[in-house]
């Protein structure tokens, strides 16, 4: 939720949690409702379900926002690089893109003069702002990073000691976030 760009999908975690909740729900169907344990297990299942659904929902929001950029990256990606989108998400993105295109064509473009009927996807592209400021907490000692302030001379070095918290541009710590050395707050 806090990162300005789409991060790599945690598919194993999501699948594992969904399976656990499914098993738990099946167990819950078996025992009676007045059993004391029922409410507590039910609450936990609801909490886990809330986290998983809001995680997936946020991913979909980001996919909708950065649609052209992500599809472009996906096309340029090499065979061995991992994708940022799961299979279902990729299908969603491709369908959304083609639906938007055909919608715009049927709605307006076919009424335009012939030389103006193209959709320039480059102009649609919204790239994520990796210089966006975020709050970060350092989990383990990490080597210091260089932080730019937008000008070419203004670069500062920031020490990343364990348990320290910082407010800085996302770009400087993007790789550390991917490796889970730094957490966003």
């Amino acid at each position, binding site marked *: *939720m*806090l*990162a*300005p760009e789409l991060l790599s999908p945690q598919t194993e975690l999501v699948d594992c*949690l969904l399976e*656990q*909740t499914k098993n*738990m729900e099946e167990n819950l169907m078996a025992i009676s409702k007045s059993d*004391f*344990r029922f*409410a*507590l*297990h039910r*609450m*936990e*299942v609801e*909490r*886990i379900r*809330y986290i998983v659904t809001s995680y997936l929902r946020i991913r979909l929001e980001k996919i909708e926002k950065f649609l052209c950029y992500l599809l472009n990256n996906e096309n340029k990606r090499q065979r061995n690089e991992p994708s940022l989108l799961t299979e279902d998400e990729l299908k969603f993105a491709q369908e959304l893109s083609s639906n938007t295109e055909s919608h715009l064509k049927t709605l307006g473009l076919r009424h335009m003069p012939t030389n103006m009927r193209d959709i320039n996807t480059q102009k649609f592209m919204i790239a994520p*702002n990796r*210089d*966006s*400021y*975020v*709050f970060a907490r350092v989990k383990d000692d990490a080597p210091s990073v260089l*932080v730019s*302030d*937008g*000008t*070419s001379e*203004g670069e*500062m070095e*920031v020490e990343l000691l364990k*348990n*320290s*918290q*910082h*407010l*800085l*541009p996302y770009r400087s710590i993007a790789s550390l976030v991917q490796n889970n050395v730094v957490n966003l*707050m």
Partner: protein
Amino acid sequence: MSMNPAQVEFLAENQTIQITPNFSHDRLYLICGEVGPFRPGIPVQVPLWMAINLKQRQKCRITAPEWMTVETLVKIKEDEGQSKTFTPMPDEHYMVTTQLILGAAPHDIANTDEIRILVKDIWDMRIAKLRSSVDAFLKIGGSLAKVDHLTLMEINTVRPFLPHALDQLFRLRQEKNSTYNQTQ
């Protein structure tokens, strides 16, 4: 990209806290781990959301966390008043935990009114410090900050304004830089 207070509260509810149940039950095998077994009068550690729920069903007494006493909070308040920077808080979610526990179990905790007032004072002090340091930070045009010992709820009070303002300043500096380089 910001969290609303309900989401911060949700995260805080995952903390463990000690309760004394008044019923007997075997170990519970939750997805997140084991809890129990429950025996009347024997303290046991449970997640905060479970403790609140059990209390509302009158099945337990909640034990206050170690830091939730008048003496500890007075000391914390003094330290916070004397320090120019933020002092470490005993609990990452002190505000949420206090409100949840004092709301659900006021009779299990001693001196609830005093504790409520002390926590509120500490919160007000820290928020005032945060506001004035944000003000100073923006005035000198700083571009990064160390925010040790700030808790999530406090950070949330300046979202989305502060990161968004810094983004704009960053963009303006970038533009100024590139036009400057072009005119050279």
